[in-house]
């Protein structure tokens, strides 16, 4: 019975649609859970700036406020370890997801970002048997997710030597930054066969190619509604084919249920893996329909889903 337990969400960033979808999912699912008396509170906290130091302070405050569990999307996999350790020492269950932490006392619900990067190349290898030049749009330098996805992509390229990364820019996971960076490098690039991205910047890349009046390559999308809509438009117009892959923002709700299960005394492995959410040519329409205008393709988890994930990890 966890009806007297309090769970907090520590979130480091709210400045993009993915995070907003994540917060919305959290609100929706935990709101119902609180109403149903599953837990007594599930508050969400967001820091003003995307900074590990600020989030560490936030976690310390949560310790003071006496939460029983902290669900954490971390600004840094390592820089919060000090605060997380303190929380564990205070007897608090810490479950990290998406942006996971390396501190051993915490649980981790991870997406295999490296695999995500590799899968992009795998897909391309199937599509383009002759290979070709790739343009890589990376995220924010120095952040672990960027490093992991990029690492996967480079691994994939090493396995498929027909591909060559002709250019690499940092789009900081922001549409306009990506567009700006791509537009700057594009004039000096040779023919580009495909653009590999980390999510959220596919549309910007497409715009930049259009502005430079260059043929649109295969651009891997990141599950944003505008990307999917653009893809659908192209698909209807000229049969454009690509794929879209990202982590579902609703994973916050999975983390919530996992935390609840741990508080309930359930034995849960420290490392859980969730699949990333992939959209292909055939299920594009179905996914596009489900995705709210301007939002991100999403999956929300129920208690049963969570239990399945926990059990399958054993």
């Amino acid at each position, binding site marked *: 019975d966890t009806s007297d337990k309090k769970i907090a969400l520590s979130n480091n960033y*709210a*400045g*993009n*649609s993915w*995070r*907003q*979808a994540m*917060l*919305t999912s959290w609100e929706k699912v935990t709101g119902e859970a609180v109403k149903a008396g599953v837990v007594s509170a599930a508050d969400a906290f967001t820091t*003003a700036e995307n900074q590990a130091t600020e989030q560490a302070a936030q976690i310390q405050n949560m310790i003071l406020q006496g939460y029983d569990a902290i669900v954490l999307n971390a600004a840094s996999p390592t820089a919060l370890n000090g605060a997380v350790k303190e929380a564990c020492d205070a007897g608090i269950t810490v479950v990290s997801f998406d942006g996971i932490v390396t501190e051993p006392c915490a649980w981790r619900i991870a997406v295999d970002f490296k695999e995500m990067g590799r899968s992009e190349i795998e897909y391309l290898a199937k599509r383009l048997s002759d290979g070709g030049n790739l343009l890589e749009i*990376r995220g924010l*330098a*120095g952040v672990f997710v960027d490093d992991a996805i990029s690492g996967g992509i480079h691994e994939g390229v090493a396995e498929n030597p027909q591909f060559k990364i002709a*250019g*690499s*820019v*940092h789009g*900081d996971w*922001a*549409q*306009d*930054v990506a*567009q*700006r*960076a791509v*537009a*700057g*490098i*594009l*004039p*000096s690039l040779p023919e580009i066969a495909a653009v590999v991205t980390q999510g959220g910047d596919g*549309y*910007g890349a497409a*715009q930049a190619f*259009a*502005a*430079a009046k260059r043929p649109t390559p295969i651009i891997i999308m990141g599950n*944003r*509604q*505008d990307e999917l809509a653009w893809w659908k438009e192209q698909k209807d117009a000229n049969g454009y084919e690509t794929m879209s892959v990202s982590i579902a923002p609703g994973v916050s709700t999975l983390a919530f249920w996992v935390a609840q299960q741990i508080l309930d005394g359930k034995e849960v492995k420290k490392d859980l893996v969730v699949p990333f959410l992939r959209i292909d040519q055939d299920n594009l329409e179905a996914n596009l329909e489900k995705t*709210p*205008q*301007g*939002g991100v393709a999403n999956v929300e988890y129920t208690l049963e889903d969570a239990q399945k994930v926990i059990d399958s990890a054993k």
Partner: protein
Amino acid sequence: MNALRLLVQKPWIWSFAATAIVWFITIMFTGGASAAGLSQAALTFAAFSIIVGIGQMFVITLGPGNIDLSVPAMMTLSGTVALKLMGVDNAMILPGLGVAVLLGVAVGIGNYAFIKLLRIPPIIATLSMSFIVQSMAIWTNRGIRIKPPALLADFTTSSFFGIPNVAIVAFVLSVIAWVLLQKSVYGRWISAIGQSIPAARMAGIPVDGVRLATYVLCAVLASLCGYLLASFSGGAALNMGSEYLLMSIAVVVIGGTAVAGGDSNVPGIWGASLFLFLVVSMLNTYGLGAGIRLVMTGIIIIAVIMVAGGRKRGRA
């Protein structure tokens, strides 16, 4: 010879020289083939920094400590609200623009109200304001991306005789800014305030009125930029302004405007904006890693400012 010497004395010339060098090095990579494409891209993206940069320049001219940190949040808010209001409807383009401008006016007044009423340094007042504005942007539609009306999207992404429309907009705004600064009473007034507020007050300048107008002007330009940028990139994002915080300050100071206030120039902003875009493009083109690229960007900025040199001293 004399003309050349005069030119060398202009503080903005150095940013243009640096721009030319970087541009040349970049197109060398493709043996010159990329010249047109690169120039067009540079003009397009520099246009946005120029628009916010002009506003920031007016504020910085007001003297030490004057800086508007609410620029990124302002851009986000105006983009979000305007696009939501227009809702893909071509007929709503002008009302959307109107609302963006009004938002700018409101935030500008808010900024100055904090500065004046709480007597706090602008840097803190506008930072606080930016948090509030950012929250407003989140609250409006929680980061949902709405497409701009087709007509507006077309306008912002296309060009006129090879010159991007946004660059033309930036040019028109620059000319107005230049006239304001160099030829108008208002320009003299802000320069005077930048040198000494007490002296300006005793010379009969309505100091508060002028400062308020300047903060409003800056917010309106940021708002306008947000409106254009959101339309250009196919929708507003909650983080779309963040790039422009450092950028707006950097283009002003690299462009040769005195950080101490009281002295400013518009052409420099163009040089600096093009330069900052091209530096990143150049380093990207030559495939340098993020670390090296950052280090190089920094070193180039410092080198430019070193060559351009400090200002001449007054009476020894």
